[in-house]
């Protein structure tokens, strides 16, 4: 055998090994996360129950109902629109595993873009999983991509022209928070959007909250973005949150920026639409070493330096912004919004208990509030 033929064979063997080893990791990312339905969960549904075309597809995510016997309002909480913004999903997981609703009801989805959890963004160096120690052992959740997996929706157009004729970068065609109100004839992501909006419409949700995170250099951060109809409620909530030493910026949903939850949920349904952002270094462009610790602690020397330079929109020091703080902010803000909705609209009252406070989360850690996996 000639030398070059031998080299070719070695390269082919090496390639096969690389393919097998990497494929094992990629396929492992497709496996579902385990969520424990707590005692407050009264029933479950699938997104395809609201838009049957999604049945059997990877994106057919779970919907959890937490209902009381007392009439009241309906609150919808969405996590996991962007799977690289983990505090949204983790907040909803705590609602599913701990909350008990005593008046009205809550409908929650923990992983809105399930497809996005099945892969990571190339060139972002993201960890695949995040882990928590609980009193019952170790739990893990996937850390995913901002966008739908290309194996579910491909190819991207050069530019994405959304349903309002606005041009966006081609990859935004797989961004769940650019595809609302959704389109039953549209692409995979727009169909998911359509399904989610159907949930809001068919269940007549009074208040709908979409949970996000933002990079610390992004101006809309530690913020509540509200549709016009939700602005009074959000204003009061921001004041109440300040009383609890939680600063929030209040933003009105820009009418010209289309396709986002806070705009289209409000425009295409009767719900009061709100989006919330916490500070996540692991999705920012200034971040240093990217690993699970960064996702969970937010500790990052590059961001500390950026804060010194005045380049950030949130305070940043060596303590970082741990996941407990970010989840705690979301859960506290949800509680304050729901409470004020009940005051402003007594017929739409929703009451629930079982959720740890902001201080408890900081003190005891996120894993302490996860339920045992049976």
């Amino acid at each position, binding site marked *: 055998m000639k030398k070059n033929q031998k080299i070719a064979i070695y390269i082919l063997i090496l390639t096969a090994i*690389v393919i097998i*080893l*990497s494929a094992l*990791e*990629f396929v492992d990312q497709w496996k579902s996360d385990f969520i424990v339905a707590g005692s407050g969960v009264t029933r479950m549904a699938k997104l395809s129950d609201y838009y049957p075309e999604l049945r059997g597809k990877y994106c057919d995510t779970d919907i959890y109902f937490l209902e009381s016997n007392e009439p009241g309002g309906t609150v919808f909480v969405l996590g996991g629109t962007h799977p690289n913004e983990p505090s949204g999903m983790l907040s909803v997981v705590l609602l599913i595993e701990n909350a008990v609703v005593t008046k009205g009801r809550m409908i929650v989805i923990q992983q809105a873009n399930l497809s996005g959890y099945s892969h*990571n963004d*190339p*060139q*972002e*160096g993201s960890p*695949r999983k995040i882990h928590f120690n609980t009193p019952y052992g170790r739990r893990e959740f996937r850390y995913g991509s901002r966008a739908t997996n290309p194996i579910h929706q*491909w*190819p*991207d*157009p*050069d*530019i994405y*022209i959304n349903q309002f004729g*606005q*041009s*966006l*970068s*081609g990859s*935004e*065609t797989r961004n769940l928070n650019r595809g609302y109100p959704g389109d039953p004839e549209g*692409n995979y992501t727009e169909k998911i959007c359509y399904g989610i909006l159907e949930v809001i419409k068919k269940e007549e949700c009074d208040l709908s909250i979409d949970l996000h995170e933002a990079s610390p*250099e*992004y*101006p*809309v951060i530690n913020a509540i973005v509200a549709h016009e109809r939700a602005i009074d409620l959000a204003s009061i909530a921001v004041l109440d949150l300040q009383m609890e030493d939680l600063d929030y910026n209040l933003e009105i949903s820009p009418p*010209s*920026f*289309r396709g986002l939850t806070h705009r289209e949920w409000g425009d295409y349904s009767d719900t009061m639409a709100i989006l919330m952002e916490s500070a996540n270094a692991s999705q920012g*462009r*200034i*971040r*240093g*070493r*990217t*690993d699970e610790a960064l996702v969970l602690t937010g500790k*990052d*020397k*590059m961001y500390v*330096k*950026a804060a010194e*330079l005045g*380049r950030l929109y949130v305070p940043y020091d060596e303590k970082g912004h741990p996941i407990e703080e970010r989840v705690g902010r979301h859960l506290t803000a949800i509680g304050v919004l729901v409470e004020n909705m009940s005051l402003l609209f007594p017929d739409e009252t929703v009451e629930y208990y079982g959720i740890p406070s902001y201080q408890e989360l900081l003190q005891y850690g996120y894993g302490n509030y996860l339920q045992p996996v049976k």
Partner: protein
Amino acid sequence: MLSIELLYFVVMVGVFAVSCFRFKLPVGVAMALSAISGCLVAGFGIPIRHLVEGGLNYLNTILVISTAMIFMKVVQYNGMMDTVTRWLIEKYYSKPALLIIGLSFIVVFPGMITGSSTAAVLTGGVLVSPVLIYIGFPKEITAAVVAMAAVFGEAAPPVNVNALIIGGGIDLPYIGFTLPLLLLTIPLIIFTSLFLGKKYLKVFNYEKIKDDLPTSYLSDFGIWLFLPIIILFILMIRETFLPKLFPTLGMPIYFLISALVGLFSGKKFNFLKIAQEAVHDALPVLGILVGVGMFIQVMTLTGVRGYIVINCLSLPAYLLYLGIAVSIPAFGAVSAYGSASVLGVPFALALLESNPVITVAALSQLSALGDLVPPTALAGIFAAQVVGEKNYFKVLKYCLIPAVITAAWSIVVIIFANTLAKILL
């Protein structure tokens, strides 16, 4: 700012340089080795998933380039390019200045539609290069004209992918960009064409070359000869202007469909043979793209990317504009689109006091310049390949002055963003 990330970066660059220049390994392989060295020194071992994930980031670009190269060969072999070259020279030889500006716009146009300088070079560039060479332009200058026009095409409206990427990063809708982008590109297209061509336009003598012009096959095949390029433009324009007509098939399919049409629209040729030739020619660049993907992934993983970004943002105010003008195109050595995302977004956020539409437009033009910076240099390397010049640095030499002027023009636009906004928006 000294930091452990600086050590990682030095190791990565060092391994790249040694692999490339000492051991003469292909650039793509050198970048892959450099990425692996970064992982090892930062304590990540050899994270195969990260290397594969990063390496596959440019899968779509790789498919576009492969199929575009096949398309380019098809229009060479079916006789269309010879015919176009002859027709353009015979028609416009009396107005050489107008001719070269017009030829530049032929290169710019596909870039305007796709937002890709590579597509511009491999479609428009393929058409105009022989014309310039017949006029008397040296190969290197022909490639420089094409590369610069392709870069302007990438930035020109209606489709500017870099602006879309930066705008997406700061939640800025892609509205109102047309006039700022025209201001950033049109004057420079005219200037660059005349600057690079002035010497050769003066000595252009039609009588001398008219007997050596390539054969026209128009009488043999008529309009059918142009069918591949017509189909390609229809498919490209359809995606931009009638996106709902049918689902996106992607640029690779458009190039392949158009290439297959070429089989039946002119001179006969062996399609399999030229397809093989095309992919063979493209392989070094495809290898670079895979290596670049791994390199960026590891830069991000190890914190080197953040280190570079924070150091750019740390520049004092008086150096900030210089930093923008240098760092954004320089990062194009890795990837122009990557530069828009990695540096363009933080700089856009740092410049929020200026009108964001104008600043993002200017930053996008600077990002497009990155397609001239080696080793990736997609616009430059393909332009060199189109004219048959093996040493890209000979081409780059002629791009330098227009590129510096382009960067300076972009910075002027950023400085006067608020004033320009009052006029343009």
